[in-house]
């Protein structure tokens, strides 16, 4: 009864998504328009070279790279929205009082922030770019799709995407942990902490190598460690969520 129940979890997830569907829809529409506008801007810059396939390929490559960066940061930012809809006391009351286990509520919120919000951004890219492609094709500038370009990237196999995906999972879980602990400013705070780690970790590694000698860590070990860190982040996040209160200090959720 008070353990994880799949039916109740499904109901909780539906509840969370339905309560937030307007935000999700606004995200989707805004990103679709932004990606379309970005594509239009790229096409405008390349307006004199649209007949040159080589130049178009270079331009599309740049559009893909730029869109990927935008998507990456947006998806990371989306993870920070894990509990943004319950910042208000009224919504927080409704969510915390929902008859479901803490685990069911936490997993629902994480799925919303780590899966559904990122999916809406990816979908927005597909829609925005397709719209831009259709408009340009309709006015006689040919079929130049960034989505197609992205699909046909050289070396774009699952194997090559595995490592970035795992890193992204870990990054996302870190931002979720930050957003679970902190009531506000989670994105800048977590980013600052990550930057500090990014600068201090190589220094520690250099010191370590000076002592022990060069180390070679197999790729799979790095991936397993990253995955373990991801699980750790989610577990700590869950423990923090269990301590959520309606009224807390200005900065933290517990």
């Amino acid at each position, binding site marked *: *009864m*008070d353990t994880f*129940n799949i039916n*109740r979890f499904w*109901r909780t997830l*539906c*509840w969370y998504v*339905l*309560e937030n569907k*307007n935000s999700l829809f606004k995200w989707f529409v805004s990103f679709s328009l932004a990606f379309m506008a970005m594509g239009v801007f790229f096409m405008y810059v390349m307006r004199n070279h649209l007949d040159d396939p080589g130049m178009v390929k270079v331009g599309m490559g740049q559009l893909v790279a730029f869109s990927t960066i935008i998507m990456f940061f947006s998806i990371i930012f989306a993870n920070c929205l894990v509990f943004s809809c319950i910042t*208000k*006391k*009224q*919504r927080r*009351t*409704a969510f*915390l*009082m*929902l*008859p*479901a*286990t*803490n685990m069911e509520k936490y997993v629902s919120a994480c799925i919303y922030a780590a899966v559904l919000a990122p999916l809406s951004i990816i979908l927005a890219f597909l829609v925005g770019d397709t719209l831009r492609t259709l408009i340009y094709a309709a006015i006689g500038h040919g079929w130049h799709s960034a989505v197609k370009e992205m699909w046909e990237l050289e070396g774009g196999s699952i194997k090559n995407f595995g490592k970035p995906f795992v890193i992204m999972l870990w990054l996302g879980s870190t931002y979720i942990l930050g957003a679970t602990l902190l009531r506000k400013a989670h994105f800048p705070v977590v980013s600052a902490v990550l930057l500090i780690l990014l600068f201090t970790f190589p220094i520690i590694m250099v010191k370590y190598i000076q002592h022990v000698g060069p180390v070679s860590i197999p790729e799979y070990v790095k991936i397993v460690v990253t995955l373990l860190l991801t699980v750790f982040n989610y577990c700590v996040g869950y423990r923090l969520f269990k*301590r959520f*209160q*309606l*009224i*807390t*200090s*200005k900065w*933290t959720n517990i």
Partner: protein
Amino acid sequence: MIDIQNISFRYAGSKEMVLQDFSLQLSENNIYGLLGKNGTGKSTLLYLISGLLRPCSGKVSIDGVESFKRVPSTLEEIFIVPEEFDLPAMTLDKYVRINEPFYPRFNREVLEKCLADFELPHSLKLDALSMGQKKKVFMSFALAAGTRLLLMDEPTNGLDIPSKMQFRKVVAGNMSDDRILIISTHQVHDVEALLDHILILTRNRLLLNASVEDICQRYAFEYRMPGMPLDDVLYSEPSMQGNAVVSMRKEGGVETPLNLELLFNAVTMGKVNQF
């Protein structure tokens, strides 16, 4: 059913304790009126009972289960109607469809009857309602949820005069033997006729914890014209009808209806404390 044992609570960042070594037991088939001056911790107590806040020490348990654990079997039995709440931008029907499955004893007939009593139609867009209408819809849902514990914080705030009467009718018509209703309010006249147990809270402690029956058996609430003797009076205050007074009820004397505002003033002034 509700057991509050020696709880102490203060808000994060505050040095002042809202409740200290506070204990209280609440049982079924009662409508409790929780009264107190501003800032005495009425809403905090409701949040602690519902598990939305965690006491610094002591524990609050409902049927033996600590409320802050927020387990589904306990949450299924609690519904809180806060003073301020938000309803999502959707139709009432959709709202009911997504929330109903969480409450095993949810009763659509009760919902429809409550809405009818509040003179509201069944098909509503929640974001198109006024604050008072939203409150009526939310209270109807709360009563239809069939939870054994219902907590209401200032339920009559924002309701117009006819709606306050409808509120009393709806609540009285939906009380059952296994239910506890706690109403925290300043609008004592709105709920006076409903209550059967009074809790008056002051900083950190309970000033009064007594049933309406006990209060009325012990004390008399009446009006005395100017010039009438006041020597047996425990507390009095001037009013349009003369002096509103609280006195010890005489043996064989007629039972008078409870004047909650007068009782509250008398208790908070320390004039009535024999329980």
